[in-house]
């Protein structure tokens, strides 16, 4: 059971496959971080326009919702890379050697499967929404598949990283 923080920089000791993907994952993290600052600016702007100028921008709320999806999608792979996710390791933390690698492989497979499910489902959802001609309702009316695209990117990015980690666990002697 822990939130294993890995601040020493995974890149240094990680297997080649993980290192190869790291720049892309960090790019996603930078985007996600920038979007958090953007929601801060937007929310402040909205409050200011309403309170000080009596001109509330109706679109900020809706945009913040879409941005939040993007923040998660682009940041999730980085959080996984830094082992920020929470897991229950009461049983597994005592494992050593081969058993520990097996547990790590199982974990990689589960995350990969999760990404597969989310990615396939999002792909289908985007396809259907385009076919149907669905629009978001509310203050921002755009084709409803557009704000779902980041979710697809997030599933692919996290999936790719989980796959890289899996390869590392299967073939590398790197850390577990």
């Amino acid at each position, binding site marked *: 059971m822990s939130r294993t923080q890995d601040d020493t920089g995974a890149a240094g000791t990680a297997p080649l496959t993980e290192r190869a993907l790291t720049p892309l994952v960090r790019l996603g993290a930078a985007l996600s971080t920038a979007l958090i600052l953007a929601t801060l600016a937007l929310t402040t702007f909205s409050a200011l326009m309403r309170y000080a100028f009596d*001109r509330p921008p*109706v679109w900020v709320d809706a945009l913040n919702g879409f941005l939040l999806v993007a923040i998660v999608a682009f940041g999730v792979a980085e959080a996984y890379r830094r082992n920020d996710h929470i897991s229950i390791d009461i049983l597994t933390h005592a494992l050593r050697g081969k058993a520990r690698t097996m547990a790590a492989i199982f974990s990689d497979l589960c995350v990969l499967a999760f990404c597969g499910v989310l990615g396939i489902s999002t792909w289908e959802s985007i396809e259907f*929404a385009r076919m*149907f001609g*669905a629009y*978001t*309702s*509310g203050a921002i009316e755009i084709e*409803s598949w557009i704000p779902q695209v980041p979710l697809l990117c997030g599933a692919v990015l996290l999936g790719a990283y989980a796959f890289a980690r899996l390869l590392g666990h299967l073939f590398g002697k790197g850390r577990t």
Partner: protein
Amino acid sequence: DPTAMRCSHQLPPAHSVAKVIDRWAEEVETLSNGEIDVQVFGADSLVGANENILAVAKGEIECAFSVQFQWGKTLPIMTVTTAPYAFSDMRIWRNWDGSEAAGFLEEKLRSKGVENVVWLFQTNSSVFTSKGKPLAGPEDFKGMKIRGLSPAFDAGLAALGAAPSAMPGSEVYQALATGVLDGALTGADAALSRKYYEVQDQFVVSPVISVYFHGYLNPKFYQGLSDTAKAALDKAGHEAALWAVEAGEAAQQAAPAELEAKGVAVRTATEEENAAMEALMRPAFDEKFGTEDPDSAKLLELVEQLKSGA
């Protein structure tokens, strides 16, 4: 074995339309001799309000209820009734179910990819709430921060000089209490159930918009039903449409007195005030909405016929 029909909607269980939906569900089960097992999931508990339409169209669930605004740009004709003051005549709604106008919209929904089974009128009477001075005529709206409704309707509000704001429903009460918002537009019954009377003291009843819900099924699921089940849905749909109008009218009539009993000032907008409001709001709404397109024009014409009580 009964066929499960999962129905999602966004309303809290105590809402008058939610109660009509529950009654409709029982009626469908009874009339279909138990062939359909209607499972109602209210309050966004299964599928969110924004996702209902696609979830039904895709067939993830069999049935959902949406309020007209939800269709937005996906099927704009569904939201024509948000045109300010255009649908205030109660005869439109009493004569709605089974009318040519309803059939016209049902056909539009079918070609979009869902099968409409029931129309549930909610209200054609709204209230403008505020603190201090009532929001009756256009001049009262200058600079007032009011929670918006849809882009086209907001254009109408802006034409009055008001400042439409966006805010989650659960925050409106607080915003009205503290003055983040200056006023609200809501159904008379919702003004009661959401306790707006605690934080607002002026209520102007005005037929500015009509609100309706409608229930629709996945077309494949509908086609797969037996004739008995289809007939049951048809009959239950007609019955529920009447229940909804009755419930809506009753709530509409009772609401002003109930609000007054809470110690706030309630008045009904005069014909002149409504006309003045409409004169400003309609052109702005029409421009944003594009009501002159042939479909909208046709629907508005069919709606005109309903007023004569045919």
